[in-house]
């Protein structure tokens, strides 16, 4: 068969084999050195099928099961953002609003047209000067402010007009603040934006810059392009189980939170004010609305001690007080809707809402958003 003659017709000697192996090793080394020197990946990550050949994703790609979810949990910020519809072309008069937060904003168990951003887009809001408002879902599963900061920083390159940042107490959990794939992969950038412990930041040098060590980034980027096709065909980017375990309603009597108990109390430094200031500085003139997102309030066992699985009452109440004080002192726009959504509107966790609950939240946000846009 002609197809293999290039291989079978050759005359090979041990010297030839050795030369091939040596050349392959040399080529491998050269490629890695060139990769380390030129660091092409940030540029490569911007080359995507999304927003060009295929539609951009309605929310950042995240998957616990790649095959079924038509998605990949990448950690590189460019890979994430350039696959998003945020990177697509847009009308010149569009007022672009980013929604940032955790899995409740991302829309866990919600279809792309049931998320908070979709609900707001369906309202067809306009600014006071008639610009159509378009909301972009930049939520991402994981409760850590550090992740939000990194995403906001990266997204600020996309002509953002306003930001609605939904937070919850769990995002301030110091033991978990760095426990996120996106954060771990972008610690050097986080260190530039916010005070990070020196020992935590692995400064990239030498082998860390090579293609060999960055192969996971390239693999994630490539896989994300491949799942672009089933995403385009189905519009599905998440697994929707037929049955899920409802949020927990009964609790024990342990009221510790993040190593704290009522006796030690909750101090204002817990709210990481310097991180907030870092975000506000980074956003510059872009108005930011901080929102304390709704939570499920249980009526079950020990619900007098706990609001829900995440929050003992004493900690959450203290958090709300400190948050109000901080935002007032700093003059930040802040909206607290913690108890505004019915308990029946929560699904598998204390923060994940049903489509109806999400629509209710959207309606609650509208006045503040319109004020933000005017400001």
């Amino acid at each position: 068969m002609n197809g293999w003659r290039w291989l079978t017709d050759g005359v090979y000697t041990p010297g030839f084999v050795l030369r091939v192996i040596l050349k392959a090793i040399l080529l491998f080394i050269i490629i890695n050195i060139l990769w380390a020197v030129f660091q092409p990946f940030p540029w490569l990550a911007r080359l995507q099928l999304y927003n060009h050949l295929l539609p951009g994703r309605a929310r950042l790609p995240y998957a616990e099961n790649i095959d079924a979810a038509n998605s990949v949990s990448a950690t590189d910020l460019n890979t994430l953002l350039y696959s998003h519809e945020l990177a697509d072309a847009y009308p010149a008069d569009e007022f672009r609003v980013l929604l940032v937060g955790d899995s409740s904003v991302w829309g866990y168990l919600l279809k792309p047209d049931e998320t908070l951003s979709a609900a707001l887009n369906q309202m067809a809001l306009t600014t006071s000067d008639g610009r159509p408002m378009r909301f972009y879902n930049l939520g991402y599963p994981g409760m850590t402010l550090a992740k939000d900061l990194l995403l906001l920083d990266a997204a600020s390159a996309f002509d953002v007009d306003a930001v609605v940042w939904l937070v919850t107490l769990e995002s301030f959990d110091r033991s978990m603040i760095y426990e996120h794939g996106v954060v771990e992969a972008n610690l050097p950038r986080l260190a530039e934006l916010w005070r990070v412990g020196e020992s935590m930041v692995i400064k990239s040098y030498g082998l860390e810059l090579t293609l060999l060590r960055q192969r996971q980034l390239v693999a994630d980027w490539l896989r994300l392009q491949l799942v672009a096709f089933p995403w385009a065909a189905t519009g599905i980017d998440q697994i929707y189980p037929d049955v899920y375990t409802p949020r927990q309603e009964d609790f024990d009597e342990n009221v510790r939170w993040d190593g704290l108990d009522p006796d030690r109390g909750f101090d204002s430094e817990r709210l990481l004010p310097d991180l907030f200031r870092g975000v506000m500085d980074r956003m510059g003139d872009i108005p930011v609305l901080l929102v304390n997102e709704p939570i499920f309030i249980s009526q079950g066992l020990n619900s007098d001690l706990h609001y829900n699985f995440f929050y003992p009452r004493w900690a959450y109440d203290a958090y709300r007080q400190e948050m109000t004080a901080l935002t007032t002192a700093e003059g930040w726009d802040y909206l607290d809707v913690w108890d505004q959504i019915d308990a029946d509107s929560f699904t598998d966790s204390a923060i994940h809402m049903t489509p109806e609950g999400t629509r209710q939240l959207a309606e609650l946000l509208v006045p503040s958003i319109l004020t933000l846009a005017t400001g």
Partner: protein
Amino acid sequence: MTPGWIVILLALALIYQRLPGYWRSWVLLFMSVGLIFALQPPLTIRGLDFWLPLTTLVVLVLIWRTTQAGQPTHREDHLTFGLLVLLVIGFASTRLLSSPFPLTASRAPPFETVIPFLFLLLVVWGVRPLAAGVSRRVLFVGLFALVILLLVVLKFEPLTVAIAAALRSLNSQQITLSSATDIQWLGWSYVAFRVLHLLFEWRNGRLATLSLRDFLIYTLFFPAYTAGPIDRIDQFQPQIDALPELVPATATRWTVGVGRILVGVFKKFVVADALALGALNLTDAAQASHSFGLWALVYLYALRLYFDFSGYSDIAIGLAYLYGITLPENFDRPYTRQNLAAFWQSWHITLSQWARTYVFMPLYRALLRRWQRATVLKNLIPPLATMVLIGLWHGLTLNFLIWGIWHAVGLYVHKRWSDDTRRWYLHLTEQQRRVWHGVGWFLTFHFVVLGWVWFALPDPGSALRVFTLLLGGQP
């Protein structure tokens, strides 16, 4: 076969090539028999991943003993049989080990469950005097039916589930969990083709004397055990005979063999596995709502299938070459072909040739004797029977049946078109022919690609939904 196994077999090839010539075929026998146990995936029914390879051996010894009944049994055959029994006992004895690298899919079953298989081996070894007194035709029918029955058990899901339930019951395992995946008999689909080839040749008086060792190496040859290519015994056996004189450890052999393996590994484990992320599957078929994206999924499936299958063939051919055996090619740029007949001469070539030899041509000759004139039936029945059988070999489902009919009709249309336009084609200019070849390629490629929709999905409803959406309709 995983990358890990490929590396192990490459390393073993280094040792194999330095063995004295006479040892090589024995080592091939040992490796081929051993690997049907080692490569068998673990199964949920306890012990079944050991019993299935045992069943393979019992059936093969039965077939060899029967087809070689007219030949004297040589000392070498007794030696081979003895080694076989010792190997089985050896593998069964691994139950006593706590090795972190088991040679069997899971811990070998209790020895008392292996004894019946050993007894069966001895029984079939003794079948030769019985077989000598039975007509070849009767024996052929019996053995043919046995092989087909075992294939049907694997391919017909209701039957597979029923047998799985029976085995679970015997094992005191939960029957309600029975499923077709309980019985995954690695390699039997391809062993069946080789065995049927041998049976046909034997029935037609064309099968040469075959030692048990050579018979087992041919039927179980480990590089091609799981997914082909399907070689012919008249091409394979001379290579075994030539092994003692072969100079395997040459730079050329290693370059060609390893080069072929590397290409295969890249095609299968890099390209095909990556394409799988975007290729059409049942979930996407049910959820799809956009035509353009769905077309992309269908194309990706077609590419994935090619790279997966041809990559596997490349690995098999490369490995076999390192062990001194040249296997036939199985793919020759099938998606570049300009008509469906040419496609089937370049896709899974060895299967097509097998089907052509044992299904298409006998049927065509029989119909030719019956109907001298060209008739629709004479031109339709052979490809229909052939393609339907190929389809059903993949699985006894309506979708595989439809896929077979799809290609049969395509082949028939191609034949009629080719016959009817022969004169017209001869009058075309060179440029017109190039245009026509382009059109032919486009039509052939899309006919094949759309045919894969039946292949990829488990039921006609899903396939029809995909076709509706592909054509711009609303499912």
